[in-house]
């Protein structure tokens, strides 16, 4: 179905080798591919999907809206993320996921996921790992949100997104494409646009990053990590038996 390597396979294969059989099972699990435009919902709070969505291209946000339209983005998703694998077991979505940019989405029926869990124990563990990493990212974000300065929090997010994109082959050297607006970054970090602009300015002035349009270049990885108190353990990037 997909000619170029499915980014989910790249993502999982980095953590533990998948067999050809397992890769085929993941490829064949995709029944259709659809394009979702920026700012459209991929799944909505309250939905009871019969399929899970795998992000092939683009950026998406997991979010909740509180009264008066205030939005908190609780996760950012990049290619290779199995956005609502949760809905396979949770059934009813307790939050929505919307596209921040044009997204290409692959659909995997829950019936197929059930078959995978019946027939492929190692692949099942790898999908379990994927949701565990999502959980680890939430823990890290919660800590950053509560206890890091605005500048450190932004530096932490940039370090994480860079590594996540690099894992699936979407970094060019020290540069990633980050087509996310300041307002969306604000909803992610719990900051006003004013603060987002100030901290980006500070990171630029310190010579840590450079923005050219949507292209974000990391100029000093070691110092950026230090500012963001970033260690990559929670992303479980090592290849080992799982």
């Amino acid at each position, binding site marked *: 179905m997909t000619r170029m390597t499915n980014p989910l396979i790249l993502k999982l294969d980095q953590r533990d080798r998948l067999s050809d059989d397992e890769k085929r099972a993941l490829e064949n699990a995709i029944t259709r591919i659809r394009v979702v435009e920026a700012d459209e919902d991929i799944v909505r709070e309250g939905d009871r999907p019969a399929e899970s969505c795998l992000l092939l291209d683009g950026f998406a946000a997991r979010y909740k809206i509180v*009264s*008066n*339209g*205030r939005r908190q983005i609780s996760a950012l998703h990049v290619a290779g993320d199995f956005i609502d694998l949760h809905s396979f077991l949770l059934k009813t979505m307790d939050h929505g996921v919307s596209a921040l940019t044009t997204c290409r989405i692959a659909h995997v029926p829950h019936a197929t996921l059930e078959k995978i869990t019946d027939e492929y124990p190692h692949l099942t563990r790898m999908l379990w790992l994927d949701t565990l990493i999502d959980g680890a990212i939430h823990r890290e974000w919660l800590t950053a949100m509560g206890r890091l300065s*605005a*500048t450190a929090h932004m530096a932490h997010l940039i370090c994480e997104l860079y590594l996540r994109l690099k894992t699936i082959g979407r970094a060019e050297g020290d540069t990633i494409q980050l087509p996310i*607006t*300041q*307002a969306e970054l*604000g909803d992610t970090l719990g900051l*006003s*646009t*004013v*603060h*987002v*602009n*100030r*901290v980006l*300015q*500070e990171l630029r002035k310190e010579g840590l990053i450079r923005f050219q349009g949507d292209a974000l270049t990391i100029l000093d990885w070691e110092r950026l990590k230090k500012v963001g108190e970033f260690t990559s353990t929670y992303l479980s990037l090592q290849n080992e038996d799982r």
Partner: protein
Amino acid sequence: MTRDITLLPMPVLADGGRHEGQLILADGQLVAVFTWVTPEETVGGQERAGGWFLEAGFGPCSTLLSVTPPVLATLDEAVNWVQARLDNGLAQP
């Protein structure tokens, strides 16, 4: 409800350095701090480009309760915003 609103000019060392600022007091109590921000500081948001920005707020003026901390054109608008917040109390964001 009539309140005694007082403005007190005060420079603020916010992220990005010194900003012109105004403390807003209601009946002698500090309820909000507004700073003057440039259009560069508001780029990419839904806020007005440049103006008086709610840097910090207390009680009903808390920045957490605001869709996005507002950027207002004039200090009069900032005072009106504070008044409306105090009138609505915690009931309405």
